[in-house]
């Protein structure tokens, strides 16, 4: 599904350049539920952007469903993004002057789906996320949890293969966070690959695979079986703290 091979990425910061990713090798299968962790500056957001084709990489190869993603035109990238990837952001990033339904329907607009049809589909997705009666509300009339659910509906509407979530619970309280994670798990149960970036251990612990980044390299990958161990360690860490 996703195959990264020795990915390098550096940013030009004026005269100096910042080497963010220093050779990432990663293999994510269809249907995986993965979290990417790491301290700030470890390159986790950059990795997510590259995965989501929002940013280019400098060296290495990135295969998505067997296609090599390299030096694509903006147009092609946009199309692929629309078909393959759904985004969920920390700050929700709903369009403020559109109501919930219109926000959810937006990706279909770019696909050229007629208005009536896409609004109908949007309602369906809102219904799935328990927000049907909020369809005509503007984003500023909704709570953080509701907004994030709208954003998830928007990410799902184009029936992507992958959901990329950048700190999806970062702006939510724990009740809402768990709710969002439940939704993401349900999505994952439907066979969609879900990749989230987080720095919260309890959130990461709900995924089936944790990738720890450190200083632009993969520090460790904790898989399903080892996850219990991780949880134990985490709880132990809390107790000693």
């Amino acid at each position: 599904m996703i195959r990264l091979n020795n990915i390098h990425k550096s940013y030009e910061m004026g005269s100096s350049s910042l080497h963010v990713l220093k050779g990432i090798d990663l293999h994510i299968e269809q249907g995986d539920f993965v979290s990417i962790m790491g301290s700030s500056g470890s390159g986790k957001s950059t990795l997510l952007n590259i995965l989501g084709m929002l940013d280019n990489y400098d060296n290495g190869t990135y295969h998505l469903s067997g296609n090599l993603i390299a030096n694509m035109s903006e147009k092609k990238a946009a199309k692929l993004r629309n078909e393959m990837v759904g985004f969920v952001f920390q700050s929700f990033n709903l369009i403020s002057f559109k109501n919930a339904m219109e926000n959810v329907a937006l990706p279909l607009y770019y696909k050229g789906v007629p208005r009536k049809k896409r609004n109908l589909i949007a309602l369906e997705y809102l219904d799935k996320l328990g927000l049907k009666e909020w369809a005509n509300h503007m984003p500023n009339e909704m709570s953080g949890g509701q907004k994030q659910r709208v954003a998830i509906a928007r990410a799902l509407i184009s029936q992507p293969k992958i959901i990329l979530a950048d700190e999806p619970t970062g702006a939510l309280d724990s009740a809402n966070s768990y709710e969002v994670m439940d939704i993401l798990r349900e999505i994952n149960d439907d066979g969609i690959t879900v990749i989230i970036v987080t720095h919260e251990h309890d959130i990461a612990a709900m995924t089936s695979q944790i990738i720890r980044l450190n200083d632009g390299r993969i520090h460790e990958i904790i898989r399903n079986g080892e996850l219990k161990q991780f949880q134990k360690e985490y709880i132990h860490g809390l107790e000693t703290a």
Partner: protein
Amino acid sequence: MFDLDLWREIVSALKKNRLRSFMTAFGVFWGIFMLVIMSGAGKALENGVLDGVKAFATNSAFFWTERTSVPYEGFQRGRRWNYETSDIDYIRDNVKEVEYLSPRLFGNNQTGNNTIRGERTGAFNVFGDYPDYFKIDRWTPAQGRLINEIDLLQERKVCNIGERVAEVMFDKDENPIGQYLKISGVYFQVVGVIHAETRINIGGGKKEETIIIPFTTMRKAYNFGNRVYFFSVTSKPGTKVSDLEEKLKTLLKDRHKIAPEDQQAIGSFNIEKEFVKFSALFLGIQGLTWIVGIGTLLAGVIGVSNIMLVIIKERTQEIGIQRAIGATPATVIKHIVAESVFLTVMAGYIGLSLGVGVLEILNQILLKGGDELFFRNPEINLTMALSALAVLVVAGIIAGLIPAKRAVSIKPIDAIRDEG
């Protein structure tokens, strides 16, 4: 191709951002509104002035006498003199460039009420004219007829009266034609109530308060002898009236023993010269209108561009999200440009309509104001309106394209991160 969805998106985006849309549109609206108003006002001034003079023969010149300023052939300076009827005949016979020639005598209106009919009296300007005068300064009969050659030949005591004279000397339901007026002690029969087609005024007084009688009758009835106070000529087609004016001046100086270098003795002016001045003036006004109008329009367009640029900055995040969920750069640019064009054209159209509407209201008010106004029929022509609109569309595209290009050059991820 008409893309209903695209327009729905645009209209909803504009509607949801009312203040922003309004501010953007207002610049353009104001620019085109001012252009229309100014151009219409300029045109109205032109129409007003030209309407008042267009019926006047533009190839006409007028002559009167002043005191001499140079001693000549035994005469001292400061001599008073007059033209004579023999001058008129001489010019008719010898100056071939003359088309129409009409001498004029001024009646006595120094004594106050010079016109009497029963209990009614009035002070009017009385002129003795040839029928040719009506061809130089056009008058048309509102009732009855104009004075003609036979009146002149038979020295009939008939008169044409201005509309105001008819008002003062007759009842509303009275027909003035065939009635008599006592003018400076002599009875004249009214044969026509006449209406002045121009507002150029030769000889002073209001044109509505004019009484015109045959030149020959006036001469005989009031004892003017062979004097001529004033005369008007027009030049034949192909002759410049300015040249004719000079020629006649030289000739008249010679006939009346006036020094050739005397600049003062003969008073004259020609309409041609005045018309050239008018034309230049209106050309100037129109040029100014365009310069100021285009300047205003340009300011409006720059305003739109500016606001668009700010908007794009404000919308960076929104554009980033749109691109993250699948909008291509072309879609984004299309949206922004379409928004901008839509705004400018709508605003321009409203400005245009409102401007034309205001001009029309002004026109209605002016129509009630009557003939006296030097300001009438404000209008703008279609070409100008359309070219202004075309400028707006182009400006709208540019105003949209520049910020759109900028918006697309920002990486979607940076755009989204902009907020944090």
